[in-house]
């Protein structure tokens, strides 16, 4: 990102499900300074919700762990959100990103998390190492 960074938020939250809403609220509140439209902020919060849920459900398999969320605001109304965990990692990222694919055997996971993240942001990058964790980085340029 060549544009100048204007502001940044970094938080660590435990990967527990109550914090899905907390993460959305934090990202929403922080991005408000760019005066996004209601639709833009709703889409961004939804993408964050998906990434956080993935860490809780899949990375840590419901057993908890640290979640690192950072939000950076750049010139030209660009937002970068990254969600990082130290969970089990994804052996095949390309496979995981396929719509309807899920490793959840018992729950009612729709397998659409990555598809939602991709649809609601301009770019999505997933970096993962088995046994070490996953970082999901999403970029969105606000209108």
């Amino acid at each position, binding site marked *: 990102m060549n544009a100048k960074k204007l502001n940044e938020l970094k938080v660590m939250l435990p990967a527990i499900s109550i914090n899905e809403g907390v993460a959305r609220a934090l990202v929403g509140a922080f991005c408000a300074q760019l005066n996004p439209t209601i639709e833009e902020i709703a889409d961004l919060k939804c993408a964050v919700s998906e990434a956080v849920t993935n860490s809780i459900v899949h990375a840590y398999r419901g057993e908890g762990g640290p979640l690192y969320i950072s939000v950076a605001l750049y010139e030209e109304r660009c937002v970068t959100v990254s969600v990082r965990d130290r969970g089990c990692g994804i052996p095949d990222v390309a496979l995981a990103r396929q719509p309807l694919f899920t490793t959840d055997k018992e729950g*009612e996971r729709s397998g659409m998390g990555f598809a939602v993240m991709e649809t609601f942001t301009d770019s999505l990058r997933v970096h993962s190492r088995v046994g070490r964790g996953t970082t999901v980085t999403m970029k969105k340029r606000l209108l």
Partner: protein
Amino acid sequence: MIEENKLKTTVTEKGKTLTVTLLGAIDHHQAAEARKKIDTALFKHRPERLILDLEGVDFMDSSGLGLILGRAALCEELGTSLVLRRPSPRVKKIFAVAGITRFSHIQTEE
């Protein structure tokens, strides 16, 4: 700020129809309790029809989609027909991402 991330699930029974009104945010956390309430009511009442009123759902991610599809599967097992009433714009947006414009065995009512 936190209030906006809650979900209120109200179940009402009228004759052979069970109506579940969902108000607020359906994420993975909120879906768990909603699932329990809906399934308990389904097994208790065994209605002919289940209506999920989605007009007041102001946030839904793919966990909410999982909740709806899971209820659809359960309804099919129980022989209960499922109606999605007035899906909110956010709900419709998630349906669109999933490529679901029309469910084959679920009715949508505007």
